[in-house]
């Protein structure tokens, strides 16, 4: 069956990654068709926390570059994208974590990222919901938040971008087959459908990592910063079992997001009460003021996790014409701008905005089979 050429580039997935890629490609003059199956996405399930992470150079590169791009985009975003630069507070609950916070602050400052240490006795004044006895915190004032579903929608609102609601059932380089049986083609296909990517490319080293979130009713000014515990840095990368970490984010509505949990080895999309409870108990151990607030909704979603925690950005080594932008785990919203810019640079053979090697699909999929 002869495929129909429908666009310069086909992007699969209309979440934040697909939308950012489509927008960047459109900006480069490409006609883009975005195909989305309308499934529950990580973009809709996540918190929309924009943060700089510095566990390793690749993480720092991609998050720092992206945060800069979000700050540029921020003023253009419509109100319903709820973009705010409210800062992150990394809490240290003991001396060991405080030492880690100080080391982190030195590293970040060296990288030119604004941050400051907050002594333990000033924390409650800054965030009255916190318990006393915390040893201190590292504050990153330039981190932010946004509402990702509307931001993705805004990015796709572009005369060079067309959207189509369909499920892709098969990929072959730069050709895709829809559930209708129809084959479409373009110069390049960008796979940006998160956890669903493995349905089309089973060879991708991506595993679902389930997470829970809860949102409270609106309350007058309860929290300013996104509050995260420092041990989050270690617990998130557990590769098995279930873990929880304290993550409290104020929404511009006066609501609070409370997270977070991580679970491997499950595909059950339902909220699991026992883990929701563990997550809330842990958050309330940092912020006792949460206990009497009403939670109004809880949900679960899946992050697309790679073994090394870094996304796959670049051409599929075995499938010329197929480009990957998947595996962003819990950081897809933060890292969408860098992902889009890097993908476009690789696609058009331009200068890389950040070093591409750490995200190259070849690190798991081997070297290109074509020259």
């Amino acid at each position, binding site marked *: 069956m002869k495929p129909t050429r429908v666009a310069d580039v086909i992007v699969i997935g209309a979440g934040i990654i697909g939308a950012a890629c489509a927008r960047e490609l459109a900006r480069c003059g490409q006609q883009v068709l975005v195909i989305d199956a309308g499934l529950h996405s990580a973009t809709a399930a996540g918190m929309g926390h924009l943060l700089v992470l510095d566990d390793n150079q690749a993480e720092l590169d991609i998050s720092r570059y992206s945060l800069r791009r979000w700050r540029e985009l921020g003023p253009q975003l419509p109100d319903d994208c709820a973009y705010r630069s409210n800062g992150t507070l990394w809490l240290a609950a003991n001396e060991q974590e405080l030492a880690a916070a100080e080391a982190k602050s030195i590293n970040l400052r060296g990288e030119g990222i604004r941050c400051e240490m907050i002594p333990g006795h000033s924390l409650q004044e800054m965030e009255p919901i916190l318990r006393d006895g915390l040893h201190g915190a590292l504050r990153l004032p330039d981190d932010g938040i946004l509402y990702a579903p509307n931001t993705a929608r805004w990015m796709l609102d572009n005369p060079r971008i067309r959207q189509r609601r369909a499920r892709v059932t098969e990929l072959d380089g730069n050709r895709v087959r829809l559930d209708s049986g129809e084959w479409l083609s373009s110069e390049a296909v960008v796979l940006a459908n998160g956890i669903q990517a493995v349905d089309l490319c089973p060879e991708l080293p991506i595993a679902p990592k389930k997470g829970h979130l809860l949102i409270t*009713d*609106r*309350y007058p000014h309860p929290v300013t910063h996104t509050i995260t515990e420092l041990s989050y840095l270690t617990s998130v990368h557990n590769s098995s079992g279930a873990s929880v970490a304290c993550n409290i984010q104020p929404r511009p*509505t006066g609501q609070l997001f409370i997270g977070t949990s991580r679970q491997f080895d499950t595909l059950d999309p339902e909220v699991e009460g026992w883990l929701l409870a563990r997550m809330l108990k842990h958050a309330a151990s940092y912020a006792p003021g949460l206990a*009497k*607030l*009403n939670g109004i909704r809880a949900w679960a979603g899946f992050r697309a996790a790679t073994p090394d925690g870094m996304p796959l950005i670049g051409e599929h080594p075995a499938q010329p014409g197929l480009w990957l932008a998947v595996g962003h785990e819990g950081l897809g919203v933060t890292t969408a701008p860098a992902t889009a810019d890097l993908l476009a640079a690789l696609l058009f053979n331009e200068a890389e905005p950040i070093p591409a090697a750490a995200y190259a699909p070849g690190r798991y999929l081997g070297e290109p089979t074509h020259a």
Partner: protein
Amino acid sequence: MPDLHLDGRPLCVAPGTTVAAALALGGDGSSRTSISGQRRAPLCGMGICQECRVSIDGVRRLACQTLCQDGMQVETQA
């Protein structure tokens, strides 16, 4: 006869009176301000619509499903 405070003002009501009724007895009947700035008052009267949520002794509760009690501090949402 329960004695309570509604937005700081003392109010005495008959036994069996709901906080929703007390809003009308001791004020203009409204319970909260909506996110676009409209005043709102109890709607469904049966614990579904959440329009009547107020702060009772510092905790958010439904006025229509709460009976007035002695010493209660009721605050509507400004």
